[in-house]
């Protein structure tokens, strides 16, 4: 059954979210930033990758959940965002093989390994 349209002024009269302790969330985010900074000095590649991208995903999830309140938004909003993310994944999956590889069976990209002219000029200067 379709949801009946409601006057917006009524919906705005009351807060639709419970406000958590934002200072605590911010402190966790800053701590995670410090983990990223410290981890980036590591010489162990998996540690650097986790410090860079693993921590970024955690930080983004914390912001989305606690600051944007995505989890308490109407059900289809998270789906809308997920569908848009899927478009990005489809783009990546469709194009990445051609971009990331410079040669294959019966084909190659001879220009791929040549530096751009601008870079060469900057280096020359």
């Amino acid at each position: 059954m379709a949801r009946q349209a409601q006057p917006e002024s009524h919906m705005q009269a009351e807060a639709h979210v419970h406000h958590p302790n934002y200072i605590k969330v911010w402190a966790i985010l800053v701590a995670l930033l410090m983990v990223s900074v410290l981890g980036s000095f590591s010489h162990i590649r998996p540690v650097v990758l986790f410090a860079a991208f693993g921590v970024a995903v955690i930080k983004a999830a914390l912001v989305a959940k606690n600051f944007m309140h995505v989890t308490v938004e109407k059900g289809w909003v998270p789906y809308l965002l997920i569908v848009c993310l899927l478009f990005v994944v489809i783009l990546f999956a469709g194009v990445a093989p051609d971009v990331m590889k410079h040669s294959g069976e019966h084909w190659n990209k001879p220009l791929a390994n040549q530096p751009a002219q601008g870079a060469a000029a900057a280096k020359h200067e």
Partner: protein
Amino acid sequence: MSASAKPISNTRSGTGIPTARLITWWVIASEIVIFGGLLASYVMHRIGHPEWAEAASHTNFWAGAFNTLVLLTSSLCAVTAHKAADAHEGARAAKLLRITALGGLVFLCVKAFEWSSDIREGYVISSGGFWSFYYTLAGLHGLHVLAGMIIMLIVAADAAKNRELQRVECIGLYWHFVDIVWIFLFPLLYIAR
């Protein structure tokens, strides 16, 4: 202006979500595709060109880290403004929104310092694939920060008079999204070397 004087598109919602917030979510959804597409393109090119690591080593890591701290803190101010707006404390919400905009200004000043330093060293947008992505990604993000600041100051002017307080949450949502984009730009442009 009373609610009844507004167009029906602004005063009713068939989705259960106030129209302004609904539009904000759609904007964010479209921004996900814009930034996501750019980031995905950068990632696949970066994997295909390991030599870009050398160019990435010239970016100012500490400026990037400081800007991350600035944006995280400004997001805290934005969400606290939303909390104040929910409590119908318009003046407090306006003050917090202005502090958030100030955070955006600090972010842009650091970015200007960083870019002028890069350009002085000869690293411009045409200096290679990495620098093309660097200036495009950071530049587009910077434009979003600037747009957010302008809208935030307009919303703050109304909020100070206890008007249109629902907009405080909407501009906050946008600002948090801009923050999330930077959360991914920081490791991609400054840490992955």
